[in-house]
């Protein structure tokens, strides 16, 4: 047991669409600085799980605690929570009406009311880090999928979140561009960012994740250190899943 209180705790999280149970009592503890990969077949509830964590989905039961404070009550200000838990989606979700820089600055300036030159300096530094400083004044339509996704990551980072959620961020990318996006996420892992990553890239998960969660049909079937999960999965369902993915 770690002495530190986990930054994020999920207890018996339950999500239903009508009668259909999508998340069936999920329990999870995330310690600061840990990278957790969430794996599982399509429709197992892994994306829904991430979306519950920053209030994009209503939950029907259980609790989420951020720094020991419950988020599942009426007084939760999700707008503030979302500044602490950043999220990047599968679809290229940059705003097409704004330039790269405007996309990045929108939330820091309008939501967080931060100083323009300070945020811009941070944005440029982040852009530099993902190799796109020269595209600050371009519009999203002028960028490739991989570039857009790297910008989306920068945009989320510029709010200075404590946790980042990645929802299959490489799933709709051209294979050639997957690498450049994963490199950015791996960099973040090295810097100690707390992350929950839903992905289908097994090698990537093996490389960056401290821990792997294997989900199926709304349940966590297996939770193990990454190394152990990939070399010696304990549950039959996880073994099957890994076998299917190996040629």
């Amino acid at each position, binding site marked *: 047991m770690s002495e530190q209180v986990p930054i994020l705790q999920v207890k018996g999280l339950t999500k239903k669409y009508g009668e259909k149970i999508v998340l069936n009592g999920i329990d999870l503890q995330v310690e600061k600085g840990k990278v957790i990969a969430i794996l599982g077949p399509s429709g197992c509830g892994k994306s829904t799980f991430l979306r519950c964590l920053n*209030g994009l989905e209503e939950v029907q039961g259980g609790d989420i605690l951020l720094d020991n404070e419950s988020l599942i009550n009426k007084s939760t200000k999700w707008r503030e929570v*979302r500044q602490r838990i950043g999220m990047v989606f599968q679809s290229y*979700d940059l*705003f097409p009406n*704004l330039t790269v820089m405007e996309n990045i600055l*929108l*939330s820091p300036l309008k*939501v967080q009311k931060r100083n323009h030159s300070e945020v811009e300096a941070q944005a440029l530094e982040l852009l530099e880090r993902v190799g796109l400083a020269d595209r600050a004044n371009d519009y999203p339509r002028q960028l490739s999928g991989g570039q857009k996704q790297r910008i989306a990551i920068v945009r989320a980072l510029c*709010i200075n979140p404590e946790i980042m959620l990645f929802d299959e961020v490489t799933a709709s990318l051209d294979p050639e561009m997957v690498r450049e996006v994963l490199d950015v996420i791996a960099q973040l892992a090295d810097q100690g960012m707390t992350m929950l990553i839903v992905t289908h890239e097994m090698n990537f998960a093996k490389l960056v994740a401290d821990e792997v969660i294997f989900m199926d049909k709304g349940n966590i079937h297996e939770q193990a250190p990454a190394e152990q999960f990939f070399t010696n999965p304990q549950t039959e369902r996880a073994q099957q899943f890994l076998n299917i993915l190996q040629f």
Partner: protein
Amino acid sequence: MLNSGISVLFEGVNMQRLLLGLLVTLRVALIAVVISIVMGILIGIIRTSKNKLVQIPFRLYLELFRIIPILVWLFVIYYVIPANFDLNLSAEVVALIVFSLWGTAEMSDIVRGSIISLPKHQAESSKALGLSVAQMYRYVLIPQATKRSIPPMINLITRMIKTTALLTMIGVVEVIKVGQQIIEVNNLDHPTISFWIYGFVFLLYFVICFPLSRFSRRLERKWAT
């Protein structure tokens, strides 16, 4: 023989009268268009609500103007209301009321359509960035929806200008009515007069609507991506 009628166009104040008639046409159309745009944006945004109690009344309102011909609306307001409610409305005011109601209904549908046609993840990523609903509309959804609504809005504006032709039926003295008056006076002396007058009216409508329709097509092509 055929060109004997053309001279009437330039006789006395005929040309001036036709242009003043056109001014009435444009005045009704433009005031109604401005009201329609403002109200249409407002109601269009309200109509993106998922609440059935909000949706149904506005939907009914829109359908009433789609199903019932504008001419019938004009007659209903012009003849029925003054007779039963002791309200005297001039033909032009009736025209403004009907055209504004109609335009607002159609505009709201254009605005609503262009907002809900935006990809869902635009709203979601706005939320994930902590934007409030008002900020999401102001910085993300409305700028994108505007781009999508301008071409159909211009098409609606040309339709509204053209439909003012119906106003002759309730006695608004707009360009067609003026034309008819000139024809009636000169018909005996110049049997070809209607060709020239209506030809000129045709030209006036064309000069106004054609550039608008070209403009909207250009925007559509420019914004196609």
